[in-house]
């Protein structure tokens, strides 16, 4: 399938010939996305061309051309979301990497960013101004805009909530090419506030998984940032050992081993009531071993993880707590005292850990989960901590049936990452497999999903076609929204519906 000549020429006239290409190799390189490689993108197709706009007006022009010629388009930036890989023929791939401007509004503590900006590009610039943001577990290379509208989950959500709540005003090219401005941007040339006249349409952008390019392209987005401590973190180490040395006067990290997950959960609720901590989370024990072996090789992981089999107890809880004295050293001392008291009362000992950034200020190495098997599928939930504990244990148990070909992780539970001081929690099982065994991963995921449907649990980022009917018919609502905003059905259809785990849409003409 090739793009009509006039359409291609029109695209060239918008961005310049250098920034659009229908060369098969360029298009081939843009047919696959990141997370979910080999799973979410199993039937993705080559786009008809790849194009790199620089401005909102250029995005608008491209979208109008797509509508005029009946072409589809899908936006990507750092491309870590495989849901935006083209799944249907006739798709133009909008590569937004050249849209990499951002402005820091120091006084009002927010950043306005284009979609090509990665977290790591912003973070140090923020530090210089005494501010900070935090990166998702998937890494600092992710686009700040894409991540905020996708969901924005990160362990520091314990204190600050999910990322999508930090969205302020934004500028958005709708599927038909109209530009919509939300919040203060709709009235004045300022992005400082998210609410504006009329209903708040930011909800259409985010939910818990965003719209995956199904409702147009967000070309500028403002997000709130926070005051940092007076001392800067400092980079140390080379290669795999590079990390931030955190200022010890303001940061303390503790690992706490609980005799049972129940005691861990009770302690977490208590810590939430006390409103202390920057990060409080139960670490997936498997990932704990992955992190230790990172940079030393998968053989080291298997050697150490196999050795640990006798001592690993599926009922134990591994809590990691990062404390930060944002306002003062006194605050840190106070929080430390509270932490020790709470965890001790629940049967654990708080053991100090190295004061290095494994706290998602910059180093977030979830991608290293791929080095055990080279594919993984996360099964996630956003629910109460109690529910997460229950479903996490059940799914870990369920996985045993699929071992082998999936690697044996001894029925250990995954991550429990509470947000908003434990008002809500993310549960995530990182299930690894070899490249050839992704079908088995799919079978495991489907079994988990069927169980979720039975018990009325809502798993995160799943296919609305499967879960919508069980949850108030939200799939129908999404379809209606899609029809209203994307009447020609050109913006990465059928997103935001479809393209769920293991339920890929078959390519059509």
């Amino acid at each position, binding site marked *: 399938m090739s793009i009509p000549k006039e359409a291609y020429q029109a695209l060239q006239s918008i961005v310049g010939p250098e920034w659009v*290409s229908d*060369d*098969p*190799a*360029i298009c*081939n*390189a*843009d*047919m*696959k*996305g*990141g*997370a979910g*490689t080999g799973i979410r993108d199993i039937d993705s197709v080559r786009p008809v061309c*790849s194009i*790199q706009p620089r401005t909102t007006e250029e995005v608008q022009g491209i979208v109008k051309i797509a509508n005029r010629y009946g072409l589809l388009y899908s936006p990507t930036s*750092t*491309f*870590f979301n495989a849901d935006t890989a083209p799944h249907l023929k006739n798709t133009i791939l909008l*590569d937004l990497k*050249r849209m*990499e401007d*951002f402005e820091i509004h120091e006084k009002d503590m927010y950043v306005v960013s284009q979609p090509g*900006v*990665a977290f*790591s*590009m912003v*973070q*140090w*610039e923020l530090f210089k101004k005494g501010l900070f943001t935090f990166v998702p577990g998937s*890494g*600092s*290379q992710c686009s700040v805009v894409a991540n905020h509208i996708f969901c924005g989950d990160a362990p520091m959500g314990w204190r600050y909530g999910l990322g999508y709540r930090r969205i302020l005003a934004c500028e958005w090219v709708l599927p038909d090419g109209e530009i919509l401005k939300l919040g203060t941007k709709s009235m004045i040339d300022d992005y400082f506030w998210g609410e504006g006249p009329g209903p708040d349409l930011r909800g259409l952008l985010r939910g818990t998984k965003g719209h995956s390019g199904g409702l147009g392209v967000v070309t500028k987005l403002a997000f709130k940032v926070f005051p940092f401590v007076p001392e800067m973190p400092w*980079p140390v*180490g*080379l*290669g*795999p*050992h*590079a990390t*931030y040395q955190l200022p010890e006067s303001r940061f303390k990290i503790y690992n706490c081993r609980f005799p049972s997950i129940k005691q861990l959960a009770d302690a977490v609720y208590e810590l939430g009531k006390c409103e202390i901590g920057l990060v409080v989370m139960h670490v997936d024990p498997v990932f704990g071993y992955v992190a230790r072996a*990172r*940079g030393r*090789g*998968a*053989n080291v992981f*298997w050697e150490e993880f196999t050795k640990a089999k006798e001592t690993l107890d599926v009922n134990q809880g591994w809590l990691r707590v990062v404390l930060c004295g944002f306002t003062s050293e006194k605050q840190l001392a106070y929080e430390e005292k509270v932490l020790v008291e709470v965890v001790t009362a629940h049967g654990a000992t708080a053991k100090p850990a190295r004061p290095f950034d494994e706290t998602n200020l*910059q*180093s977030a*190495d979830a*991608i*290293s989960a*791929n*080095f055990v*098997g*080279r594919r993984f599928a996360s099964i996630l939930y956003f629910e109460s901590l109690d529910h997460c504990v229950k479903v996490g244990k059940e799914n870990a148990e369920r996985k045993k049936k699929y071992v082998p070909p999936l*690697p044996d992780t001894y029925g250990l539970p995954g991550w429990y990452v509470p947000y908003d001081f434990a008002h809500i929690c993310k549960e995530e099982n990182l299930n*690894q497999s*070899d*490249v050839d065994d992704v079908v088995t991963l799919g079978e495991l995921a489907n079994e988990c999903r069927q169980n979720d449907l039975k018990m009325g649990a809502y798993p995160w980022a799943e296919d609305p076609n499967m879960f919508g009917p069980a949850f108030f018919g939200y799939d129908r609502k999404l379809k209606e929204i899609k029809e209203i905003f994307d009447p020609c059905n050109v913006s990465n259809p059928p997103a935001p519906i479809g393209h769920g785990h293991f339920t890929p849409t078959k390519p059509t003409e």
Partner: protein
Amino acid sequence: MPFKLEDYAIDAAGCPRCSNCKFIEHVWIKSARFARQCPINVMHRFNLYSAHGLMHSALSILDGTLEFTPKLQDALEKCTSCGACDVRCKRNLDLEILAVIETLKARAVEMGKGPALVNKAIADKIAKSNNRYGSPHQNRLKWMTKEIKVADKADVLYFVGCRASYADKEIAQATARILNKAGIDFMVSADEWCCGYPLYSTGQLDAFQKQVKHNLDMLQKSGAKTVILSCAEGYKTWKVDYPKMLDRNTEDMGFRVLHIVELIDELIKDGSFKLKNRLDMKVTYHDPCNLGRLSEPWYHWDGVHKKWGALEPPKIWRRGDKGVYEPPRDILTSIPGIELVEMERMRDNSWCCGAGAGAREAHEDYAMRVASERLEEVKATGAEAVVSCCPACKEILKEAAAKSSEGIKVYDITEIILQAMA
């Protein structure tokens, strides 16, 4: 051929397309301006122009769903094989990203789709005259001056390399005078041939093997046990690519490979060599890719990929953290009057100068843009000069500096050492 694309298919398939290959190590980022590290991606931005895209291209070439298109050829010709993507990926994963790119370049050559014509012409010159310039072989030692003392027989062989022998003679002269001053007996060989870097790095592996064989024979005949180089490209070729082509480990080659900075640093630290002349200069240091992240010893691995990422037998990974980073810095800071300031992209995060892997020969404008990008970073440090350890880096940075109005001076470290010698 011991080094085939098929052998690295599993590495290409393991790419999770996370885009980390496009950035320097995140914790070392100090500004958005200098956050990116892949020259082809910074200049072209399409994913094809990155490890991310080249991994998928390699898989598609292997399964026959893609041919070497003009853009793929362009990406491979412009990729300087700087290895930045490789070491960034290996922070988190066990994948041989650079090996995929290198063998993809070799596959392009096999299919008649590479290298660029000018790099083919260089191969012809090497075949005819044993050097990349096509100059008469007998001129190879013409860089030598009367005051340089060379031994007839010694344990150390100074392998001068084409650039310092024919073009950047001041580097060869400075290196020889430093060795003389340090009291190191050394030989040079009139039978030295091009190390083969221009061939290996452009995928011309058959031609490269001839160079490997000849130079190893030459070394054996000379009886030397240590090869000294003043060229980062030559250093990496001798230390990494020669053993790679022979399926051997660097340590089993029977000789030691040293860059001049490693030797001088050792001598300074044991007190037998001193740099006493004062040089009042604020300088920054440019890490050559081939002396830094790519210079770790090669460990041959001939095993199998087992389930769940395990390898049988286990493999020793080269992740870029053990390159030659400190010796040149320690030499510079030992010189009275020199103030060393660092660029944001340094050590294993260094930005390539643009000269590597035939990119400059094939795409001069592109390579000069890459070099100019480096000079922007030099400028941001406030340094008046940039020092490197490779003739190729010096040449391109000097030319880029000449085109700018900043007046930044460019030196090879041997020239600085020579000036600082008492």
